[in-house]
């Protein structure tokens, strides 16, 4: 599966993609313990399976919000689009100290 999300250089969204794209998102961290504990897509709960969230983009604005938790309160993490078994597309870096949730604006055409 090719990577679906492209950074939006205009800054009006975080990423742009095509409508109907299937996107899988996961988290990597120094300890490997940072977990996605919950997710919503446009305000609707999205299933978290084995620490990843998979969703299909709808036309227009897609608001992906993640709740995170990890074993080290000061741990750095990277939210990745999981493109295939060996390819990841970094979406954002963060630290659990900055808060337990993270949001993304994805515009699909």
């Amino acid at each position, binding site marked *: 599966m090719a990577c679906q999300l492209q950074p939006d250089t205009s800054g009006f969204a975080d990423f742009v993609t095509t409508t109907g794209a299937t996107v899988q998102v996961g988290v990597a961290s120094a300890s490997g313990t940072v977990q996605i504990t919950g997710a919503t897509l446009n305000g609707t709960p999205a299933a978290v399976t084995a620490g990843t969230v998979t969703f299909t983009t709808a036309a227009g604005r897609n608001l992906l*919000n993640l709740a995170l938790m990890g074993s080290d309160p000061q741990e750095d993490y990277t939210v990745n689009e999981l493109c295939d078994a060996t390819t990841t597309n970094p979406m954002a870096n963060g630290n659990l*100290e900055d808060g337990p949730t993270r949001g993304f*604006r994805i*515009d699909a055409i």
Partner: protein
Amino acid sequence: MPFKRLTVCAALAAVCGPLFSQSTTDNGLAGFRVAQSLASPTFDPSSLADVFGAHRLQLIQYLRAKPAHKTLVRDAAFQATFRDVLQAVEDARVDEQTGSSSSSAGSTSAAERPGISDLLTAAIEAGAMTQTLDQNVLTLRANVEGLYRFVTGQEIIPQCVSPTDTACNGSALNNLELAASFNVSSSSNTASVSGQEPASGAQATELLSVNRRNFASATARYVIVNSRDLKSKKYRDAWLAWFNANAATIGPAAADLLKAFDDIINVVANTPAKGPDGNPVTRTITVNGQSSTSPVMVYDQWLVTTRADLKAAARTTDAIETVLKQRLDVLETSMRTLIPDLDTKLELAGNAYMRYFNLTRQGYELGNMPMLTASFTYAEPSAQPKLLISKIAFAWSPKGKGTVNPGTVTLNGGVSMYTKVQPTDTAGKTSRWRSADFALQFDRPMGGTSAPAAITLGSYIQYQVSPGLIDIPAGSVTPTGNVPLPGNATVLLAPKGTIAVAHASITLHIPKSGIRIPIGISWSNRTELVKGSEVRGHIGFNIDTDSLALAK
């Protein structure tokens, strides 16, 4: 006079004193940590603008601090930022040994704590607990694995991509710490000591003096049980087991948190912006060669402008905070227009966050597990024969409510021996064994979540198997009368006895700086070479790179 040695360190503390008076930003922007971030030359101030993505909690906190909302704020705990509260977990740790041991010429703790550094720590301390001569002692500690990774240019903390990934597991060297102590007194210190010449039994008195800036000791410490290290495999395994066992509780709490935040954020992030003419603002998106027109949302427009304003602002805390506050107020106006019951929703978000955080910190409390460390020291105490010291340090924290460590009890047991066989009496007996020592200490962080101080109460007992030995430098004379000491004597037997020490101290901590300043007082019934009780003052200045890294 021991207290004269406090002068240097007191001056050091005076330099640092103003840091204690630094007030946290009280305009609701504390969570953005502008001043700390600006310390990094690579920090991009425009990144602060992403308050719907990376800085949601800081936005909620800012809005809740506004006068319009303050009357609704009932949960004072939320006033602390998530980062501040979590930093308190590290700040409140009282199990890490940064200075020298109680048997050195300058120490600020009766017991040796079992925790080791992740990378480097440095401490300068004044005031001996058991040694007859007290000095200023500089102690440097380094984690072997952390130092090796640093020196070889590797990631100090390697990443794992999943809980089953082993790339981030520390090696055995991660539990090994090497330390060295040096006497760094600015002037020599002297004391008059009396002892018995082993061969003749003659009494002699010597004026001891110490050389400044000399090597004091080298120590290797290995943590046998290291479950308090948040990066240890044992702690991670325990945390993952806790996480899996509590998934049924964590999931709903996460869903509540997301819903509460979504109710505030999604409306503004999904409402099309209008231009001055009242028409929707649009833009063209191109993906894979296909283009389409899409609306620009209220938040998108605000974000682009805010990023530009922050980028253009002078790189000072005041300038950045002024722009940020101005732009957040603009966003708040839009939010209040689109969300008439914003204050109620902020309250719900605050409550949902506290429920989620209460769950989170249950996992962190797994870190308050027993810890066991073994150490081996080669020491060159002033005016005494060289020593080998082995010690076991054990720490345990009782369960307590809240994030902050409720206290740690530390126990030490150890033995010391001379590097060479030494005389033990005037009848010709010899032995390598010198003493056995035991210590008990209680450390407790004070001052709530910011943990600006910690109190320490400790006791130490040294049972002398053999009399203490006084090294006699060549050509030594008695302190009065300039009478040469026995010509063939190399050591004198000091009066034998058991040393008991009681110690109390307070450690001041500059939050997020890695700097700790212990100030204490001790009473001992005698010192290693001289009978008679002593009351001494102790002060130190410690820097821990772990906390410095966390304050990035």
